[in-house]
């Protein structure tokens, strides 16, 4: 499998771009400017090769056979788990559960942790800026248990109101579930402070880290959360693979969610003994290739360095904010003082859907719509926004292309 070279010296974006085969292609006769990284980021050759290399030489089911391929597949799969453990500094690989992604992780926690524990009148706290995947599983859990979902407000900048949060933490609060970084607004929560306050009161905590791990170094032990969830495809890995970190003593106290193969030690019609962590929560044949690809994505990010990536992206954000600010009728949606590298905006007189089409005709890929955060749209009183989200391979030239395409759309449609 491709060796990963460690990047030294300054951040060389052209070298980074050369690692991503798709960036060489044209879209509608123009060079692709891929600015939809918050939806799904592109994959470097190291990830593509790791997945293909596994299929070519090592594929077999894991944890099941004594033959060579099965041992190799198991070793690769478990090595990816160890990479994920180090990536977020979990104490042990028993705390790393491979799942389909963030959505599945939140559902698992709701059903395996929440459902047996919650009583009518108990409270679950989320914020107003959550992605639907950190809202709907809790609404379903409330329907099943009689618990109540409470929502911490945000302000016009898209900052979650910490004082209100403290006031809302009450004797019935059982679970706090918060995004580390908002996908619709870019807001970075001071998550430590939120988690500290919950932990002091003995409340279980889940962090939706889907938009955080591609941009900043995460240390789950320093954060002190019970659960931390993220998806491979937002951090330059494959789709269909993600991680739920769960603190060991919290996981130990949970019953399994799905039953099947791999999650058992022994099965008989007199009774079944469940497997140890983390396998207890990985029923059935897992996404082996996906986990290996995720491991390769982690290696790739580490070789460049999260700090360096964050620095490059923050520069892009500052540049883009300045370049777009003077576009007539453009209003940023989400202006928190601490933001990750994305910008949501509206343009007076031009609907986001039309913008998306015009931009695409010029090779610029952005996301338009509600970004699976309809409460955020409701709060800002807009049906949809246009979102440009930057990753480690984006350039100032691409932001210039975005600006030109926006001006073109305005001339054409307003």
């Amino acid at each position, binding site marked *: 499998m491709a060796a990963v070279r460690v990047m030294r010296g300054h951040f060389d974006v052209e070298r980074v771009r050369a690692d991503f085969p798709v960036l060489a292609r044209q879209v*509608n006769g123009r060079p692709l400017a891929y600015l939809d990284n918050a939806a799904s980021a592109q994959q470097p050759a190291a990830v593509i090769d790791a997945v293909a290399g596994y299929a070519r030489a090592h594929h077999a089911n894991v944890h099941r056979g004594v033959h060579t391929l099965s041992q190799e597949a198991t070793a690769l799969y478990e090595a990816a788990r160890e990479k994920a453990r180090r990536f977020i500094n979990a104490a042990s690989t028993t705390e790393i559960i491979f799942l389909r992604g963030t959505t599945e992780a939140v559902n698992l926690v709701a059903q395996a942790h929440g459902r047996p524990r919650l009583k009518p009148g108990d409270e679950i706290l989320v914020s107003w800026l959550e992605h639907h995947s950190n809202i709907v599983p809790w609404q379903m859990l409330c329907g099943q248990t009689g618990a109540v979902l409470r929502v911490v407000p945000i302000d016009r900048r898209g900052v979650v109101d910490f004082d209100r949060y403290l006031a809302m933490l009450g004797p019935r609060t059982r679970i706090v579930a918060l995004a580390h970084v908002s996908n619709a607004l870019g807001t970075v929560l001071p998550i430590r402070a939120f988690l500290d306050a919950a932990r002091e009161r003995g409340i279980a905590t889940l962090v939706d880290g889907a938009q955080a791990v591609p941009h900043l170094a995460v240390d789950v032990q320093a954060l002190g959360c019970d659960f931390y969830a993220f998806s491979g495809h937002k951090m330059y890995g494959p789709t269909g693979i993600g991680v739920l970190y769960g603190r060991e003593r919290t996981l130990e106290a949970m019953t399994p969610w799905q039953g099947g193969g791999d999650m058992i030690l022994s099965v008989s019609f007199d009774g079944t003994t469940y497997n140890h962590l983390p396998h207890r929560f990985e029923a059935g044949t897992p996404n082996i290739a996906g986990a290996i690809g995720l491991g390769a994505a982690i290696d790739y990010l580490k070789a460049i360095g999260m700090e360096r990536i964050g620095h490059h992206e923050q520069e892009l954000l500052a540049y883009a904010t300045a370049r777009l600010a003077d576009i007539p009728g453009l209003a940023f949606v989400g202006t928190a003082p601490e933001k990750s590298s994305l910008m949501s905006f509206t343009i007076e007189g*031009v*609907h*986001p*859907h*039309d913008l998306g*089409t*015009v931009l695409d*005709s010029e090779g610029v890929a952005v996301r*338009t*719509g*509600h970004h699976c955060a*309809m409460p955020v*749209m409701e709060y800002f009183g807009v*049906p*949809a926004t246009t979102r440009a989200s930057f990753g480690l391979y984006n350039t100032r030239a691409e932001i210039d292309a975005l600006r030109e395409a926006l001006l073109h759309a305005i001339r*054409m*449609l*307003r």
Partner: protein
Amino acid sequence: MDLADLYRDVIVDHNRRPRNFGRLAGAIHSAEGNNPLCGDKLHVFLEMKDDIIRDISFEGTGCAISTASASLMSEAVKGRSRAQVADLFGSVHRMLTRHDAETDADLGKLAALAGVREFPMRVKCASLCWHTLNAALAGSAAPVTTE
């Protein structure tokens, strides 16, 4: 793919100055349509005389394609019977979805929407108003959606 074919002058004009926009005071039929993908919302109001659409208006937020389509539709169906509207919708639908189809001669200004078929993601934008109109004619209370 040619943007100028999608955003023809007629479309841009009807988006800037939608005709029959607003709430019809004497409306006896109305229906709501949603496109959950882009958050578009449309409300169609009808004043019927027997089988004929005597007056029509619409309200809502949407992209240029959905606004222009609703505006063009409102002009096209005024004074027509239910059966004529059904025929017209058939022609519009063929134009929006069938690459081989000749654009029907009776479409008039609605033919400006022919470029939409090159943009499959946008067909729903153009057809939302027609589905909403059908719901209003059928007197259906549940909002229609494109999904």
